[in-house]
């Protein structure tokens, strides 16, 4: 059996979680590798949560928030974007490839974008192999 990555998805309650719901009711297919964690806002996803997920064996982490300017809490996704820059910059410091992390924006009526985002990160991480594989080899 090939390598099946584990992907943790932090989905904003107001957009991407609703989009995931919609994708479900519309019977759209997306990789079963994705484990969704519902959060009230992408802006509450502290970089430590991302790092924690990776250090506990998640192979990839994706944060999904509302389109910029459409945050339910005014500027939560702008905070998420600022934090995202920190995460991308610091992942290498802690020994993870930056490609294991992604942030993306979509609205609750865009399940197709959600499916595409999930499929993209799953396929990308599948090619990279399990997290920390480079540590074991070194």
């Amino acid at each position, binding site marked *: 059996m090939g390598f099946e990555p584990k992907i943790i998805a932090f989905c904003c309650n107001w957009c991407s979680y609703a989009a995931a719901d919609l994708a479900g009711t519309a019977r759209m297919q997306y990789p079963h590798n994705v484990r969704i964690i519902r959060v009230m806002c992408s802006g509450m996803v502290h970089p430590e949560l991302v790092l924690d997920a990776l250090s506990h064996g998640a192979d990839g982490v994706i944060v999904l928030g509302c389109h910029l300017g459409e945050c339910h809490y005014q500027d939560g996704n702008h905070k998420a974007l600022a934090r995202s820059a920190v995460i991308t910059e*610091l992942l290498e410091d802690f020994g993870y490839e930056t490609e294991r992390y992604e942030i993306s924006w979509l609205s609750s009526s865009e399940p197709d974008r959600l499916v595409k985002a999930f499929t993209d990160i799953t396929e990308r991480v599948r090619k990279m192999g399990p997290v920390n594989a480079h540590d074991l080899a070194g």
Partner: protein
Amino acid sequence: MSVRAALEWLNSCSGCEIAILNIGEALVPLLTQHLDLVHAPILMDHKYLGQRGDGTELDIPEAEVGLVSGGVANIEHLQVLVKMRERCRVLIALGTCATHGGIPALMNGQDRREGWEGVFATRTTDPGCSVPDIEVPAPLDRVYACDEKVKIDLFLPGCPPNPALIAEVLMAVVEGRDPVLPQKSVCDTCPAKREGKGAVSVVRRFLINAEFLAEDPVGRMRCLLEQGFMCMGPVTAAGCAGRGLPRCIEARVPCRGCFGPVRRDGNQMLDMMNALASNGIDFKSVVDRRSLLRFSGAHGLLRPVKKKPAAGRG
């Protein structure tokens, strides 16, 4: 009734032991009435292998409470620590080295072999110098905090730890109650004036003096972070406050993070970067961000920088 206590130091500079001495007045009743020191390498000549050196196995007398300072950097530290855990009912990690790796864990940020070769043989040493392989306990693969190796019951960080808190912890053990220790961040105990970070877009190193009036109390000085200095108050555990003020802030100098992260499993570098970014400050303006882990590099947080392979990974 006195409580049997054992002191032990591992990869330590003895600053924590000096902090114990620094307890002051309260130390006298502690030593004369409450504690019975059964083992303390800094104070008394108690040999690990029997007083005549005829033992074959490292031994430490049994004690109710053990205080361990310093991190774990070599095999000897590890053996002593494991024996302390075996012999002490309550084991306390004293000082930031024991709780988070401390300054020696900076070594974790570089390649161990290169580091050791740099210590024992530099360009200026006489020829023939090399890393010793006899008579010196073998180093571990990196510097560990005590809780990475054995179960620790109580954590008392600080570089050095606050004498008042050491006394509080010891008295708590003597009285059989939970100690009252600060849980918040340095900022929560800092009186500096906060007016909002609005104008700050970059942080700089503390190379010029902060703005304040010498005759004014610290409470009338503007927050150092708001003055644009890299102050680690937000991501550092409180506890240093001696006379009511965080020690560095009292000297009008930004916090350097010596008490380690606020939550025990926190990450000072990540948290600081996150705090800056969430407040609209350019986190890339931090010079040498890895040095934010200067006191908490154990627990695998500080790692050698990976040299990127010529061909992209994966």
